[in-house]
């Protein structure tokens, strides 16, 4: 009996002992699909992965949320579904916890945090595999991404809190109040200046930021700030780049293979990185939800050969079930997100020229866009008529992209056109969670 006794006692003792000794090692567990934030950007590989992560953030809010915010809120798209967040947007009665506005706001800041990390840590990466050119490219892309983030926040929510450092702990947040819209746009401009300097330019890239991409966004920024001369100048720089052209027929840019000459910036999706935004546009017979439906007004315009012309290809179906087909890859879910098209630069320059009383030049640009869509030249004569014609053209040309709402708000016409006379509701509400958790934030008036 005794040997057995001893053996068991021995095993028990050994166990206790080894448990004590190896505790620390035993209790150290690390994940296999993440890295510690302290080692997130240390070499060429991680620097590249980080900027890709920032693009992924841009994809996240442009796949469906931001285009929805720019369309259903205005008059081209109406609510036809069951999910109340879209009904709220359609009615312009947006609660502070509206799912779409919250998701977009959160997505943008999350992307900005990634971009901030790239801007903060990539300069100090010391890796021979990371050439200076590539470093600059990555940094330029990060500046561009931050710029578009703050631009989209500014035009949606007004002047916002400017986070320019990566969040490594929460103390970095303290005391940052909301900036004015001008201050937000100043930050966008500063980042775009950096981006333009650092970014490369080649003859084919359309789904990552390039010098021209930064200039295009800058043209748009100046347009929003009514800095007409700058808007014209930067739009011209992009238009003159032979890499871009108005493609014909109109439908070519949203037909696979994508990345047509039309695109200044489009975000590519793939079988492993899907965009199922079509699902909100297509009827259930295709497996869609048909939540977003072209309004009767835009259907009439698109069907009118004098207004829509070739842009009729944006819709399909008939009668009561006309649906939008800008996002149409229902079998594969690979529609790109269209951020900047060359047509927009023409219309930016047209508007900037008209505002500077260069009506002739304005009409040239306007007609370039119209002719591409097989629509006759504009008959507008006076400055007011030309500006109205440009607004109408924008509405049809970008019927289902994130334009119409922001254009009407930018030009102060949302009251007249949409009947939304209370200007408080021209801005989206700051998310409810932030009102609860952030002592430094103030809600937009009216919410």
């Amino acid at each position: 009996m005794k040997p057995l006794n001893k053996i068991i006692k021995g095993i028990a003792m050994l166990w206790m002992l080894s448990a004590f000794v190896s505790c620390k090692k035993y209790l150290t567990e690390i994940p296999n699909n993440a890295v510690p934030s302290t080692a997130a950007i240390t070499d060429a590989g991680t620097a590249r992965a980080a900027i890709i992560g920032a693009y992924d953030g841009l994809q996240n809010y442009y796949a469906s949320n931001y285009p929805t915010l720019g369309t259903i809120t205005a008059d081209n798209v109406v609510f036809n579904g069951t999910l109340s967040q879209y009904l709220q947007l359609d009615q312009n009665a947006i609660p502070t916890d509206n799912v779409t506005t919250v998701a977009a706001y959160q997505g943008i800041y999350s992307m900005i945090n990634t971009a901030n990390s790239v801007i903060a840590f990539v300069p100090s990466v010391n890796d021979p595999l990371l050439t200076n050119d590539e470093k600059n490219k990555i940094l330029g892309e990060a500046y561009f991404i931050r710029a578009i983030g703050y631009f989209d926040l500014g035009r949606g929510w007004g002047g916002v809190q400017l986070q320019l450092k990566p969040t490594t702990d929460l103390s970095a947040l303290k005391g940052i109040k909301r900036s004015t819209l001008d201050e937000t746009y100043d930050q966008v401009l500063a980042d775009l200046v950096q981006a333009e300097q650092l970014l490369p330019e080649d003859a084919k890239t359309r789904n990552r930021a390039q010098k021209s991409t930064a200039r295009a966004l800058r043209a748009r920024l100046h347009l929003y700030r009514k800095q007409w001369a700058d808007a014209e100048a930067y739009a011209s720089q992009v238009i003159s780049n032979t890499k871009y052209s108005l493609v014909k027929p109109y439908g070519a840019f949203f037909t696979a293979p994508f990345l047509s000459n039309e695109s200044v910036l489009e975000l590519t999706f793939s079988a492993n990185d899907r965009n199922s935004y079509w699902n909100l546009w297509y009827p259930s017979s295709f497996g869609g939800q048909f939540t977003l439906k072209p309004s009767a007004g835009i259907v009439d315009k698109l069907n009118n050969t004098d207004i829509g012309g070739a842009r009729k290809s944006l819709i399909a179906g008939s009668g009561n079930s006309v649906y939008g087909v800008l996002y149409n890859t229902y079998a594969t879910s690979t529609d790109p997100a269209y951020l900047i098209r060359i047509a927009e630069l023409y219309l930016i320059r047209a508007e900037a020229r008209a505002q500077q009383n260069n009506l002739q030049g304005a009409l040239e640009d306007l007609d370039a866009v119209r002719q591409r869509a097989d629509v006759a030249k504009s008959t507008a004569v006076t400055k007011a008529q030309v500006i109205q014609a440009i607004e109408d053209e924008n509405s049809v040309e970008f019927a289902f992209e994130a334009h119409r709402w922001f254009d009407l708000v930018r030009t102060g016409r949302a009251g007249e056109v949409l009947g939304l006379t209370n200007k408080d509701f021209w801005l989206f509400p700051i998310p409810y969670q932030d009102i609860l958790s952030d002592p430094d934030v103030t809600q937009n008036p009216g919410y």
Partner: protein
Amino acid sequence: MKHFLQRSAVFVFVLFLSYRVMAQTAVTGKILGENNQPLENATVQLKGSKKVVLSATDGSFQLEGGSKEKKILVSFTGYETQEIPVPSNGIISITLKRDNRQLEEVIITGYSTQSRKFIAGSIVSVNASSIKDIPAAGFNQLLQGKAAGVQVTSNSGVPGGGITFRVRGNNSINASVDPLYVIDGVFVSSSDPVQTSMGNQQQSNPLADINPNDIESIQILKDANATAIYGSLGANGVILVTTKRGRLNSSAKININAYHGWSNAPKKFQVTNGPETALLANEAAYNTAIDNGQDPSAIVLPFPKADTLPTYDRINDLFRTGNTSNYELSAQGGSEKSTYYVGLGYLKQQSIVKPSNFERYSARLNYDTYLSRRLKVGTSINITRTWRNVSSNDNNPQGVINSALFVRSYLPVYNPNGSYAKYGSFDNHLALINNLNNNAVGWRSIGNIYGEYVILPELKFRTSWSVDRTDEYENNYANTLISAGVATNGSAASYQTKNQVLTNEQVLTYIKSFGSGRKHAINALIGNTLNSVLTEGTTATGTGFPSNNFTAISSAATRSGSSSRSEAKLVSFFGKASYTFDNKYTIDGSLRADGSSKFGVNNRWGYFPSGGLTWRASQEEFVKNLNWFDELKFRGSIGLSGNQNGIGAYAAQGLWSAGANYLDNPGDAPTQLANPDLTWETTRQADVGVEFAILNNKLNVIVDYYNKYTYDLLLNVPVPLRSGFASYLQNYGAVRNKGVEITLHSDNINTKEFRWTTDFNIAFNNNKIEKLASDIALGASGRNISILRQGYSVNSFQLYKQLYVDPETGNAVYDDVDKSGTITSADRQIVGNALPRYTGGLTNNLSYKNFDLGFFFYFQQGNKIMNMNDFFLVHGGTQRNIGFVPRQLERWQHPGDITDIPRMTTYSGDPTINGGSANNYGGSVASLSSRYLEDGSFIRLRTITLSYSLPSSVLRNVKLTNLRVYVQASNLFTITKYKGLDPEVSSQSANQNTAGYDWATVPQPRTIQAGINLSF
């Protein structure tokens, strides 16, 4: 070893000899208990011999080898053991004297057993017989109403579906609130392995993998004194399950159980018919036009001929009579040195809403053997295969119920060409019922081997090695006839999920009584545990299939896959000691130290002490002299226990996570802020209790008061979104639960032929968030109907409080909380919560001769239910693709109408005007009105059972020991004010903080069943 074998052989030989020599006389007899009730399975032993027999159902026994010089020992749980000389004729009738039944049992506590009368902790024991035959898959579900302080709610009526199980309230906000389940010493996983999305509903009850019929008893450890020994795992209570084992020297006993049940829905959904729907839609269009200032004569109604519209019934297509079949076969017994229990089970249960099903095959082997007199080894193995036909309901527009309930009733089910018609975002309910192909097959293996070595008579060493492994394999195929598959020409997903819990334990136990008259008793133990929890998953998806005949992902045109892994470890050391003086006073204490891999490097170790005092006042002379109490015991305890479950394995680390890809390049992005100080949340619990028995033990009462304070909550504190993060996990906040529990057991009538017992329990719990960084609002797909706010209980609902519908205008008027004169988000307020004020059960058992009648009520009071079906289907016309429920017909129509349903309109003018028509269904309020919040209190006849057991005289002739047939009804009726289908519902249960929603959920079935139990 050789020596040992020799000794054993001699020992067996001697035994054999003694058996031969003394076999001249046989003792036969009958063992009776109180009121001459025969006692089954009483142990009869010849003193000084190892030979033991068990009495039959009628109390009879036959023991070989008696002789006049010998005495026999007769014992039975809850009765005093008697020692009786063998009578000369060898025939004897023994009546055992009842001990204090409630207070005498030996119960299993953490890592040891102890007599109930000395235990300072609050522990409820539930005997398996009180939960048998109820047609529910999980044993935890069966505990509803059976134990004070344990709140159990089935989240839906889907068989094998998720349940809510709380011991003494919700302790936590972001960490788990589920108790620790320990089955035969194995820490079992209660995490849900099913991956198929169910619309925020908890998909399955992982404890449904255990066949309830294999269970011998269940102990629920509630207070800190009982749970502190489980340290960082114990704060939410511990459920200890002991499965059946054989007994030494008992002949084989074979049990067969079978039942069949038929279930239906006591109440079905109702929607407005075609003409009513059109009438309401017309009214909405008309009123909206008026609100917009249009000329009434110019209004074009959407349905000019409303009363000609057809009605298509979809609701009746959903429901069916669900069949439940259950078959069980078990055998138990033992030889001189080893014991065994073998159980096999099969259960198939159909949901009353098509097409969900649940099926379970289970097998269990429990085996113990003495290798020597000192060394015992044994094993418990449970293998289960479950199959679920998963059907998504609740918050999923493409779920079966949604597709039938929400679609307007005048719309045809089929297109003119015969294909399934689909509307809005909804699928076709028949397409789903006929084509859903979501198979979840789970294999669960729970195994344990142990060795127990008696070093000294009072010192025992035990080592135990366990594994609990769940493999869930799901294969879903959406063909081209249902929405999920139409766009992509078929869509398939396959999930392989593995949960593995490994536990190793060593315990050294010391039990000794000493001193004169054994006045001093010591019960002590020390031990350690190593525990690791591994979760791994592999997912593959495919789209684009040649035809619906191909369902394997290998045949898909586009395929992708993913895998994940996480592992957490725990190292623990613990000790516990209790000292009893003179059977009167007991003092005990325990301490456990835990180190966890989940926490920050600065705070990895936690220490959990507890202490308790017991005073058996009934042992005092002055109490005895009162002659009131048969037993009187006071106990009090205080201690700490911890919680680390429910947070991620790497929760303390600052992380950049992969998968943020673009252009098919790998990317990563920040996903989690580091918190190197992260540590346990701790629950400090004080408990005082009194237990007494009066009226000759006819009435047993247990009363407990507890006060639990949980601090350093593992809280996902919402952070400003501008940080790039949504929340930050930190130890912040506190929750208090306090309450009273009362348990009564009464033997009302106890005669030879008629017996009536009543069990009653009721538990009051008050939950309050004592400290929180800021409000946390969540629930209902971003509608934030649930809120966590300091000063209020968890699971509170925040809505706009509707004061009335203005009889003049028909517009809803809401409480203007901030008195601003307008309705904005600041006017939302807490208008109730989903937690019941009290819950309880009432069980009555009556037996007359061979008939037994039992009925069991469950009740809960004070909880609110957010009726999301009304929220969506009383929409005033704002939802063009959704129909109405009859409640919409109660809308205001004419000046002077008194109702709580405002005037139909979709007007969207200024949303801030209180009493303006924009806020009736849209506007700032967006239908988040208290008019959809209802009282969810109910009392329900959970089961009523009538059974008949064949008398033993008949049984003997057919060589059976037991034959019982019964009929039973479950959920026969429910008394409630709730207007939805069933008040026992929680559709958003995937998150513990969003309880109390009713959202296109399968109701609890009403079941009639017939069954038979057979033993021989």
